[in-house]
């Protein structure tokens, strides 16, 4: 009874995950790395408790989770914790993540050209999709680490604010890179040029966002809101997937337009965050289970190139932040390492690619996203903690366990 074993494993995992996150100052699972690792352990490559049919059964849930993450990110774009992100931080975040995504894409493209002589630099369509997809998955700085820092570790102050703003304000670049990758991919609405495909995708998100805002205009009860939000995000997701467009982009724009057009944006953001927890966890477990070390014959060197490029790009961005912001200087050079944090958006991009491009392309992008989340856990979490402590902003070293539980679920 493999499926019963899976059930028991999930129950045990739920306990362990909750317990780990609640342990103050030790295990930190802000990126969801624990759930990814759990999926990898349960998946076909390790214990085999989640085999092919089980993974296939969970795909629908994973797709829904990706759509919801995109919607939530769009709803929050430009905002952090109920306040607007400063323009400088928004620009720094966006340009930094764009540079990081492009650097990763270039590194992957270079590695492919080097590993397979004669292939040329991103000359094959699949190579271009793979490079852009990996760039999209590894471009952003995960917002969750800094929320976790504020919620669990009790970090308060200018550096904590700045890191949260940069982490929250850099989501446009991965969305744009993912849209570009979907647009240049073979298949889909092939009659349209790549730019037109992006236009259709943007139009879809904008129209659905406007319609959702119209529906929520005057009747803003919780049940109605949930139905409308889930309904429109699923329609966006389904239509984009039907046409081969990026549902990350469609969902993101839906969220942005809804946030701009609705006078209930604060409540919508709160609700989106609240729902994200139960929706995203299964997707994280599935993402871990779907990782296949044999997805691409050159997977390891590609991952090394991608992660190396990301660490360098994030390091450079961090150095710029430290140099330009007095608040960051108080945290010391180690603050730069905090920007290597990765989170659900990167994993969502990875899952979207794995579902849209099953095989070497999707498998590599997903593996890179998962590896980035795990690496971010190792690098960014201790860096952030050290920087915040150096800046004197880590006030609560012994927070109540309940806070840990609450935040841990955000994963």
């Amino acid at each position, binding site marked *: *009874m493999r*499926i*019963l074993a*899976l*059930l028991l494993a*999930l*129950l045990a995992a*739920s*306990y362990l*995950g*909750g*317990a780990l996150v609640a342990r103050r100052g030790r295990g930190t699972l802000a990126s969801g790395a624990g759930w990814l690792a759990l999926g990898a352990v349960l998946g076909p490559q390790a214990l085999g408790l989640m085999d092919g049919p089980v993974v296939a*059964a969970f*795909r*629908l849930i994973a797709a*829904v989770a990706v*759509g919801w993450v995109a919607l939530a990110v769009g709803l929050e774009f430009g905002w952090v914790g109920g306040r607007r992100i400063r323009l400088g931080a928004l620009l720094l975040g966006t340009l930094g993540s764009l540079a990081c995504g492009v650097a990763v894409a270039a590194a992957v493209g270079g590695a492919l050209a080097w590993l397979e002589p004669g292939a040329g630099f991103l000359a094959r369509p699949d190579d271009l999709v793979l490079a852009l997809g990996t760039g999209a998955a590894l471009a952003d700085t995960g917002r969750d680490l800094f929320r976790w820092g504020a919620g669990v570790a009790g970090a308060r102050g200018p550096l904590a604010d700045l890191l949260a703003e940069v982490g929250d304000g850099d989501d446009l670049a991965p969305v744009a890179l993912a849209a570009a990758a979907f647009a240049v991919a073979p*298949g889909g*609405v092939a009659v349209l040029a790549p730019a037109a495909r992006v236009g259709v995708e943007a139009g*879809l998100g904008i*129209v*659905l966002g406007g*319609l959702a805002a*119209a*529906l929520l*205009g*005057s*009747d*803003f*009860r*919780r*049940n*109605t*809101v*949930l*139905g*409308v939000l*889930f*309904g*429109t*995000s*699923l*329609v966006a*997701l*389904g*239509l984009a*997937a*039907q046409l*081969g467009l990026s549902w990350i982009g469609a969902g993101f724009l839906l969220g942005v337009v809804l946030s701009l057009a609705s006078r*209930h944006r604060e*409540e919508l953001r709160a609700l989106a965050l*609240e*729902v994200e*927890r*139960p929706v995203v*966890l*299964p997707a994280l477990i599935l993402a871990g289970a779907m990782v296949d070390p044999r997805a691409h014959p050159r997977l390891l060197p590609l991952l090394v190139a991608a992660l190396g490029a990301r660490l360098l790009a994030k390091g450079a961005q961090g150095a710029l932040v430290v140099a330009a912001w007095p608040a960051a200087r108080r945290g010391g050079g180690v603050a730069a390492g905090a920007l290597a944090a990765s989170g659900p958006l990167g994993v969502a991009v990875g899952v979207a690619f794995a579902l*849209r491009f099953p095989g070497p392309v999707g498998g590599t992008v997903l593996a890179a996203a998962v590896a980035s989340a795990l690496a971010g856990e190792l690098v960014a979490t201790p860096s952030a903690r050290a920087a915040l402590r150096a800046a004197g902003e880590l006030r609560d070293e012994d927070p109540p366990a309940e806070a840990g*539980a609450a935040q841990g*679920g955000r994963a």
Partner: protein
Amino acid sequence: MSAKGPRRSLWVEALVLGLLALLVAGAERAGPPIVAGAATIASVGLLLLGGTLAASLLEGIGLPHLTGYLLAGAVGGPHLLHLVGHQAVADLAPVNALALSLIALAGGAELRLEGLRRGLRSLAWAALLQNVPVMLLTGAVFAAARPLVPFLRDLSPGTLAGVALLWGVLAITRSPSACLGVLSQTRARGPLAAFSVNFVMSSDLVVVLLLALALTVARPLLEPGTTFSPAALGELGHELLGSVSLGVTLGLLLIAYLRFVGRQLLLVLVAIGLVLTNVIDYLRLDWLLIFLVAGFVVENLSRQGPKLLHAVEGAGEVVYVVFFATAGAHLDLPLLGSLWPAALLLAGARAAFTVAASAVSTRLAGDPPALRRWGFAALVSQAGLALGIASRVADAFPTFGPGFAALAVAVVAVNEIGGPILFKIALDRTGESQAEAGEEAEAAPSIT
């Protein structure tokens, strides 16, 4: 969340839904989906939106949300506008099973021993009069309706009696999901709400027993050459005992989890629902009963019941919208159009016998006036259980089974649409409804 506000205008909602329907239909015509399951995802979205908006509109005229969900599914489903295709409806089966398992779990947790003890007299009289007498009387009307039902005309008297017996069993099924759905919306508290939930939940067990008995008795009538065989009763015993055992085990596991962990509860429930609904089919157990028992155990053997209910209710209307909109998509309205005289007669007879049985049982039990007047209201709705029996009969008896199932679908359509409306009216009239339109937002539990 803010609460009351001016009602959205009808045309805005109709326009939005129309645009979305056009988008979905246009995308389907653009070619085969690039990602497997894309059409299903879009269909679920459309059902959610349509159901939510229809419920919101119908609420204005006092109708329950369920009616809106059902109508959205029926209109957008494969039998009318075909915005949601047959394949999408079939693909939604696991989601539907998951929704129903959560509803059953909540239903079990609503059954409190104390309440059952207090209402034992009412429940006993109702069980006595609402089951066997209604089954036999409705079966008799079914046999008498022979001229209106094409597949009955050529049957011998013995076979007709056997088929009528099966119809009688189908007639005494009720809809736990509809009952809980209306109670979830109205947050009703009082004798009618308590009696309804207790009776409808426990009657599932009675129906399972009577179905097995009826099949055993009817088989020699329906299949000449076969003899009375009590073996089916042994299988029933295995099914019931196995279901109760697994339900108790699941309930105890849930108590331990709630007591010692308590986190990510909705996620754990979803995992359990997805996994068990697959396993239970394999084991040939009654999964509705398993989840009912599990909820009952959690509520009555621990203090964790409110936590469980809170988590299940956290999924809010989304669970109900998906479940009932999909049920609506199954409703074959064109078929109802062709079988409507027989369907109306049978639905009307069933309702009349239910009302009469309620009048007698509540009087004998000395129930309060609200129950005497409206005790039948929750018993009219029918849904999945009735369709499940019809499908089982269709599989077991190929000669008349398909016709039987088609007529059952038509009758269930009438009861499925009319039943929740009746129950909502009863709760409103007796003053047991707690939540009016705007209050629901404030009372709604957290999603986590």
